[in-house]
């Protein structure tokens, strides 16, 4: 049984991590990153061709984590597969021991390194969640019976910093209605705004896990502010980073991350830490938050 599900359903605070599969066939580095996180997180998200860049698939890496008894959250996007392939990959995932699935739309192919690829989006994230719930009930999308059924713990994403917020919340409700049992969010840097989002979704009674992206530099903050939807890194945090000498940046990044986690912790049921390669900071951050 999924420890991640068990913890969330018993109301405990969870910490999840994230790993991006490599572009190539050597997965040792990413498995090493998973080992670094093992003792500090309940489960690890495995991204599905993040930023629409060709890489090893999330199914393969999730399966490798299962072999090492690390619990994966298998990310599945609608960008590259039609409904046959999505359902088949879900059945494959269950057969490989994967229980947690995060269903997403997926970045558009033009955002990545195969801009000429056909964007599939045969289903959207709401329809994918419904399809996965239907598989859980022993039937496929065409209402044919499965000879045995999975029992996925299904999650979805939401962007608390989106403006306007209302369409995001409408979609969040639709996701819950078709089977989303947990939400992981886009990166949070403004706990005040996050609080106002939480106040709007409290009555939905679904665990929300706040997204935390380790900020590596002022330049990264500026890039995200200009280019990434729903993320606003406030000026004071940008200044904190730019005032820090390069050799102390990692320490500062850990400090800022720990501070944000402490601020959002009372508001939600977990944090999802996206280290973007600075995985070695995660143990320190978590120790500091839990101290």
């Amino acid at each position, binding site marked *: 049984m999924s420890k991640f599900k068990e913890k969330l359903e018993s109301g405990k605070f969870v910490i999840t991590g994230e790993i991006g599969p490599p572009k190539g066939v050597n997965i040792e580095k990413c498995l090493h990153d998973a080992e670094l996180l093992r003792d500090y997180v309940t489960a690890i998200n495995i991204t599905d061709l993040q930023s629409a860049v060709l890489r090893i698939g999330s199914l393969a890496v999730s399966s490798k984590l299962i072999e090492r008894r690390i619990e994966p959250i298998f990310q599945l996007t*609608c*960008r590259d597969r039609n*409904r046959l392939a999505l359902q088949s990959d879900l059945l494959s995932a269950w057969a490989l021991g994967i229980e947690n699935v995060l269903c997403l*739309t*997926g*970045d*558009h192919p*033009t*955002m990545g390194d195969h801009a000429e690829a056909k*964007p599939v*989006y*045969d*289903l*959207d*994230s*709401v*329809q994918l969640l*419904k399809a996965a719930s239907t598989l859980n009930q022993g039937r496929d*999308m065409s209402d044919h019976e499965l000879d045995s059924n999975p029992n996925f713990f299904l999650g979805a*994403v*939401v*962007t608390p910093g*989106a*403006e*306007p917020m*209302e*369409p*995001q919340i*409408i*979609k969040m*409700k*639709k996701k819950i*209605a*078709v089977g989303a049992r947990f939400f992981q969010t*886009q990166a949070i840097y403004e706990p005040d705004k996050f609080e106002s989002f939480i106040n709007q979704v409290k009555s939905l009674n679904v665990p929300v896990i706040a997204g935390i992206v380790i900020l590596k530099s002022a330049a990264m903050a500026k890039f995200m502010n200009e*280019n*990434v*939807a*729903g993320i606003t890194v406030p000026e004071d945090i940008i200044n904190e980073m730019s005032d820090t000498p390069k050799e102390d940046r990692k320490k500062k990044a850990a400090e800022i991350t720990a501070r944000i986690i402490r601020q959002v912790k009372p508001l939600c049921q977990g944090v999802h830490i996206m280290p973007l390669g600075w995985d070695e900071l995660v143990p320190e951050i978590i120790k500091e938050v839990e101290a």
Partner: protein
Amino acid sequence: MHATIQKPIDEIIGYLDPGEKVFVVGCDNCAAKCHSGGIPDTQEMASRLEKRGVNVVGWCVPQPKGISLCKLANTKKVLQEEYGEVTKQADSFLILACGQGIHTVMDATDGGMVHAGCDTIFGGETVTDDFITEYCSLCGDCIVEYTAGLCPVTLCAKSLLNGPCGGAKNGKCEVDRNRDCGWQLIYDRLKELGQLDKMDKYIMPKNNSRWSRPRSLTMAGTEVTFRSLAGDVTISRQD
């Protein structure tokens, strides 16, 4: 309307064998509106080709004024009767029209050799004389009842049916920050109409077999039948 844009002249020249006798055909409806195959555009194409040494035996844009090239009976009459003497000498036809027009010329000339002079790019609204844009993807399964008349299949880069992704910033799409997020437009209009509750409705995945190609429409008396891989759908106008 079917929007078209002329192919680069060098690409067109590359299609033609040395000495090939070409007859250029335009369309007085959609292609004329797109400035890709109206009377002036077709005449210009004929002289541009001649300047490059192509043997152009003639050109025409089938009339009456405003008629579509894809209306087979008219195109056949024009190409076989009105221009019959010239088209008989032609080895091939260069079509300045959409893909439907290309096939119409093939039918109208009993299997004549055709070259595409245009790319057919989308079905659109002629907003002004100099601006055409796309609001429909011809999917065969319209859902705009739930989206304030705005098609998310067309206006959303990901064709999402149940609301926006998280990629929009300041109401602009993640694929192009100058382009409106389709779901932002739908949300704004539903709100303005006081129909935001329509966004709560779960919209089923598309029946893509209605989008299977080639599709056809048959008119018989008071009934019309749409044929696709989703099966025949017959609608009576008198129900």
